[in-house]
């Protein structure tokens, strides 16, 4: 198990490294000089030259890359152009808000998606199954930012059930949860559809298995067979699905943070763009990429922990 976990993390590090090369290459290849972008159109050539050498942009490309790579490994993502604060501090300040948002979205999607998928599987072919099926496709299809804006319009502006702006008072959990409800639902609702569909499919597959027949032959109740014996197996792929979907959720989080004016990485990057605060952008992108890769690795490891079959085959 441990060896597997280490191997999986090793693969993650390689992927992050390649992603960093690509990020760097993108910045380098794309026309537009980070220094002049940062300083804006009114900068004099001297100012640009000074910033270029401060940012190390006058060095040969491979030196630039290794400087970028190894300082990133040490946790040094550069400093904010204007305030001079370390980028990593700025990013980490915002990270918890985004993490809370994503955790909320996962909660919604799991709490609604698993029961819906289960009901659809049990009522296979019936009216309820068809309705759940169509709704699942629909919520997957509609982009999350449209859902975010419409839910803002309906629940916050028109009905005024929930607050529209911000992340809630610091230290006040109830207020924070209230502020979390709408944006996390907007992100999570599409995943309700994904999870419901997947749980339905794997549930139907599991119910055909011969150990389910055994359980029936031992007189266990249908309820226990469905919700304990079959569901335990049918929900396992959810972990993988969510692991892969985490990147998608980060994307949705950017929109949700902007629409609901919540602090967070997405809002940070968006605002950094409008003031051309370019190190913040690359820093935040790098952090989210690492986050994505780590979560993916964790999902694989978690599957190992949840599924005894995988667990043993790894030992």
């Amino acid at each position, binding site marked *: 198990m441990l060896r597997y976990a280490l191997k999986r993390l090793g693969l993650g590090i*390689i*992927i*992050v490294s*390649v*992603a960093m*090369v*690509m*990020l760097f290459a*993108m*910045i380098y290849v*794309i*026309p*537009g000089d*980070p220094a002049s*972008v940062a300083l804006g159109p009114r900068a004099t050539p001297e100012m640009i030259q000074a910033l270029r050498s401060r940012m190390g942009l006058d060095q040969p490309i491979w030196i630039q890359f290794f400087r970028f790579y190894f300082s990133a490994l040490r946790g040094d993502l550069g400093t904010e152009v204007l305030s001079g604060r370390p980028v990593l501090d700025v990013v980490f300040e915002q990270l918890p808000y985004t993490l809370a948002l994503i955790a909320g979205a996962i909660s919604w999607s799991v709490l609604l998606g698993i029961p819906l998928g289960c009901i659809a599987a049990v009522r296979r072919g019936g009216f309820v199954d068809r309705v759940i099926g*169509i709704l699942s*496709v*629909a919520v*997957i*299809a*509609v*982009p999350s*930012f*449209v859902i975010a*804006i*419409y839910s*803002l*319009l309906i629940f916050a*502006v*028109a009905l005024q059930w929930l607050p529209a702006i911000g992340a809630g008072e610091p230290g006040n959990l109830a207020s924070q949860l209230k502020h979390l409800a709408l944006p996390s639902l907007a992100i999570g609702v599409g995943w309700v559809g*994904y999870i419901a*569909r*997947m749980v339905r*499919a794997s549930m139907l597959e599991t119910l055909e298995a011969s150990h389910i027949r055994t359980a029936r032959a031992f007189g266990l109740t249908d309820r226990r067979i469905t919700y304990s014996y079959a569901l335990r197996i049918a929900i396992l792929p959810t972990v993988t699905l969510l692991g892969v979907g985490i*990147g*998608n959720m*980060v*994307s949705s989080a*950017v*929109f949700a943070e*902007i*629409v609901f004016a919540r602090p967070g990485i*997405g809002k940070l*990057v*968006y605002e*950094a*763009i409008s003031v*051309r605060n*370019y190190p913040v*952008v*690359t820093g*935040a*992108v790098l952090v*989210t*990429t690492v986050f*994505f*890769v780590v979560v*993916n690795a964790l999902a694989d490891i978690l599957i190992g922990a949840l599924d005894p079959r995988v667990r043993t085959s790894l030992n």
Partner: protein
Amino acid sequence: MSEQVLIDRPSRQRVAKIGRVLRRILREPLGAFGLTLVVIVVLSAVFADVLTSYSPTKLAPAERFAPASLQHLLGTDHLGRDLFSRVLHGGRIALAIALGATGLSLIGGIVLGLIAGYGPRWLDNLMLLLFDAIKSFPTVMLALTLVTLTGPSLLAVLIVVVLVNVPGYARIIRTQTLVLKSAEHVMAARSMGASTARILTIHILPNVIGPILILASMDIPVVVAIEAGLSFLGLGVRPPLPSWGAILNDGFVNIRDSYWIVVAGGLPIILTTLGFTFLGETLRDVFDPRLKRRE
């Protein structure tokens, strides 16, 4: 003469096949609904100039923030522009980008997938690693980084979509190519000295292209969503060009007083994504039920 027959038969069969597929789509309620939505969206984009006499970009300060009425079916925005007209013309841009970007991604995915699948092992591994790395950037983060450097433009949207879609397509093409590489008819062609280019285009490509086309058609709503999303953030289509995302942004700023702008921007996005998705789902079930397993 014989050539005539050879060409004629398959094409007649093809027409018959399209008819069959169409009938099967229409038999499914969801497929019929999806097809109807798609037809409406496409026709209203194509005939935008016929359907409305208002210009999508002309400012009319006197008519700012007019709610929906008979004159302005969806109302007007903060600059007095007719929203119905903007929605129809925005459809042109959305569909053009969706088709263009999907086409480009397909070409890219097919070429890279064939190379990875047919080329040497090390190249295959390297490309897989690159695909994984690209996938590890959240789409919007990738877009934000790109746009920081290039500035907002249609081109930036196009690049983002292609970057996001190519790895997925290439992976599928690669897997299929790997399987076909050792298939009998390919081995036979190879042993008879067929060139690599010939093997790829004659023997492999026709066999891998079917599933990927269906998948690509299912990605069209995703591309529509990316364009609208980036335009909403002000990173895509530049004003004053009409875009559904841009309308949403105009409406979002004024959401408390003029709700209809947001409604006008969101509805076409919802109808388009739903239509294409329902149609795509039905198409997939009709053409290739095996693909369903991939979820």
